[in-house]
């Protein structure tokens, strides 16, 4: 596994034969103005793999492009834990603060490198597109996928979900939520509870950073006030006061630095863990969804089968039609079951 945050350049000294793929996300630049301003990043890919266009490629990407990559992978690789993305929405104030930008950059770098290290994901063509495509192609791909008009299949699926939920409620049926074994249940519980603990820990870590900053600020103010107080006294006393005041101010600077340190090296990794857990949960949810869909389709199939039997006796023409519908349903069922 590649150590993600220092992957800027895999040494060219590595043996020429060994395949490598190293990516770095750098150079955040603010683009645009006003409400539509955003940050663009430089994504540099260095590789010797044949699937790629060349040894080095540089493209410009923005956060929504990373989102696109994440969503496409999630669609196509169901059941795989997709590395988590940093949070999407940020409070307007902080969107362009130095720390926020750096934290996001680091997280995006980590994200893309984890994908590149994943045995399955790294072979996907979406990744290749992301790393190499022209900006215009990327733009088009992105706006198509994230546009308001989703694919019709999605709409259908949404309807079906709602339908089945409603029928459950109306019929008061007990439905198996998902296929599961005792081990899977245990794992699920573990994941859910772990998320709680980690979230709590991360919340406290965030507060701790804030407290450091606050303490730093108040020490600085206190130091200043003490110095001014000493200035009223004069001679020996003033020196003593001024010493204490200066030390106080120095401490304040150290505390601010400590706060930064804590933010990057303690809170952010914790947040990363929380995101990873959430991604796992998403996959589990997928699994549950898939199971339910499969179950619903199975019900449908059984129903159609019954119909078919009925028709067979009553109406030979309709029988052919029904049969083809039946086959379709089975196919759907089959493919879903295997995903």
């Amino acid at each position, binding site marked *: 596994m590649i150590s993600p945050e220092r992957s800027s350049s895999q040494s060219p000294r590595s043996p020429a034969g060994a395949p490598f793929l190293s990516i770095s996300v750098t150079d955040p630049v603010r683009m645009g103005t006003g409400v539509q301003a955003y940050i663009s990043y430089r994504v540099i890919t260095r590789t010797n793999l044949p699937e790629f266009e060349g040894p080095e490629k540089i493209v410009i990407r923005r956060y929504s492009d990373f989102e696109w990559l994440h969503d496409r992978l999630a669609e196509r690789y169901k059941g795989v834990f997709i590395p988590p993305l940093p949070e999407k929405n940020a409070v307007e104030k902080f969107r362009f603060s130095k720390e926020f930008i750096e934290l996001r950059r680091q997280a995006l770098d*980590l994200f893309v490198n984890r994908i590149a290290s994943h045995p399955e994901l790294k072979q996907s063509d979406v990744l290749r597109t992301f790393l190499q495509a022209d900006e215009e192609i990327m733009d088009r791909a992105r706006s198509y996928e994230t546009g308001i008009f989703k694919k019709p299949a999605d709409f259908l699926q949404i309807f079906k979900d709602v339908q089945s939920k409603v029928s459950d409620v109306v019929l008061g049926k007990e439905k198996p939520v998902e296929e599961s074994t005792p081990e899977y249940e245990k794992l699920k519980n573990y994941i859910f509870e772990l998320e709680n603990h980690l979230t*709590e820990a991360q919340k*406290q870590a965030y507060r701790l950073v804030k407290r450091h900053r606050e*303490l730093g600020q108040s020490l600085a103010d206190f130091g200043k*006030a003490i110095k001014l107080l000493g200035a009223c006294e004069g001679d020996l006393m003033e020196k003593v*006061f001024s010493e204490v005041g200066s030390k106080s101010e120095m401490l304040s600077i150290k505390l601010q630095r400590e706060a930064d340190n804590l933010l990057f090296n303690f809170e952010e990794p914790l947040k990363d863990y929380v995101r990873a857990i959430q991604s796992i949960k998403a996959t589990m949810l997928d699994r549950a969804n898939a199971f339910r869909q499969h179950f619903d389709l199975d019900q449908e199939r059984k129903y159609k089968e019954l119909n078919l039997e009925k028709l067979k006796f009553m109406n030979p023409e309709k029988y052919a039609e029904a049969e083809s519908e039946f086959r379709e349903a089975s196919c759907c069922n089959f493919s879903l079951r295997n995903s």
Partner: protein
Amino acid sequence: MMSSAPPSEPATAGGDDDMESLPLAAASDYASVASTFDPLLSSTSATAASPRSPPTRAAAFTLSPTFSSSFVDPPSYADATGGGAGSSSPRSASSPSSASPRSARLAASEYSLLAVSDPETEAEPAATSLVPGSAPTYVSYLVTSVHRRDPDQRRHSVRRRFRDFVTLADRLAEAFRGHFVPPRPDKNTVESQVMQRDEFVAQRRAALERYLWRLAEHPAIGPSDELRVFLQAEGKMPLPGSTDMASRMLDGAARLPRQLIAGEDAVAAPQEVVQPARGGRDLLRIFKELKQSVVTDWAGVKPPLLEEDREFLEKKYKLQEWEQQLTSASQQAEALVKAQQDMAETMGALGLAFVRLTKFETEEAMYDSQRIRAADSRRVATAAVKASRACRDLNAQTVKYLDTLHEHLSIMLSVHTAFSDRASALLTVQTLMSDVASLQSRIEKLEAASSKIFGGDRARTRKVEELRETIRATEEAKFCALREYERIKENNRSELQRLDSERKQDFLVMLKGFVASQAAYAEKIVDGWETVAEETSGYARARGSDSITS
């Protein structure tokens, strides 16, 4: 934290009307912060002034449960660093009985024991009510004292209510004009309405006790009769002759016609002249002095006697500067205490979160590696909890030392009173002097007029005689007033000197203690983290080859 609504109270006798009530409010806020974070600190002893209390406090005769001296002595440096590997910083004063200046002052004070305790609710004697049990009540306290130089070391115990303390304060203000008389606790703060009854009573009890100690420490007030009577005289305290302004005004209004009819030649008796006009009944005198001050301030007429003491004026100016900075410093001190408290809380919460996390991991682990990681994380958790406790302890020390700032702010209140005593005495003298001058000029006019009449004018001559009498009386009064003024000036001067030296001592102790405690606890916390870092150093070493995602 309680809102810092400044107590709105009418001017205390002889005090400045727009006296800064803000510092006292800040002090009471401070006390409430101090009491909220340490379970050892109840709100009764929410006084960082308890380092004043000498060891004899333990012998205090009291039933109040939360009376225990709550401040842990600052750990000596060696203790804090666990055996002290030769740290070069100064040792903090390790106990109040050591040579700290305040304890020296305490040891020299008139009373070796002063305690306020046992609050009890009593009914107003004069009140009758139709509904039994709803008579207005007040709280009385047991005041215990032992005089240091009493050969029998008798222990006096008397019951006093807050109103009695107010009386005492008023009497002291009259008797010790020009001195820095310690301000008494507030009458009725907004908090007393908001707070629970018990809490309020407890706070008041502590404040009253502190007040008595401050009085005892004062070189002039400690040995005074007023204080002694208050502490030792059995039975109810005699009421002062009408306390409220309204009745004074009424008395004065009753006298006014007589003064006017008798002509403006009525002169204040010498003994009255010794008191400030404003608090008294002599409306005429009040008007005259008011006129004098207006003439001086607005009409720019040079008064017959000026405040000439340049040294004093310089001092006064410097003290104003000082007070301003002191106010700001005390506010920052409060903010610092709050920030430290928040830090301690969050660190503790973080530690707790990690404790729960590691417990969970250990119990639900499916792989051994999880348990190993969990054990290491637990070290972090324990270190965080320890750091949180140390931070809280540090804050207790910080409160104790930085309280000097608040103490000295309240001393500034007494300074203002003392200065205004001086100003009003000067005003009295000035008024009398211009009285004399105007009488003199009237005499001259009359004499000039009567000299024009052949044989003299008997009516005018008689008038002149009267006027001369009046002048004589006025001169006498002026003489008294002048003497009083000089006395007050001298009090001011000696008090300023005393304040200077006390200030130096107190602040040196404060700074030393503050710095030493910060350093000591910082070392303690750092040690804790260093240990954890060492124990988990394996992770740092393995970082290069490990991936974070594993």
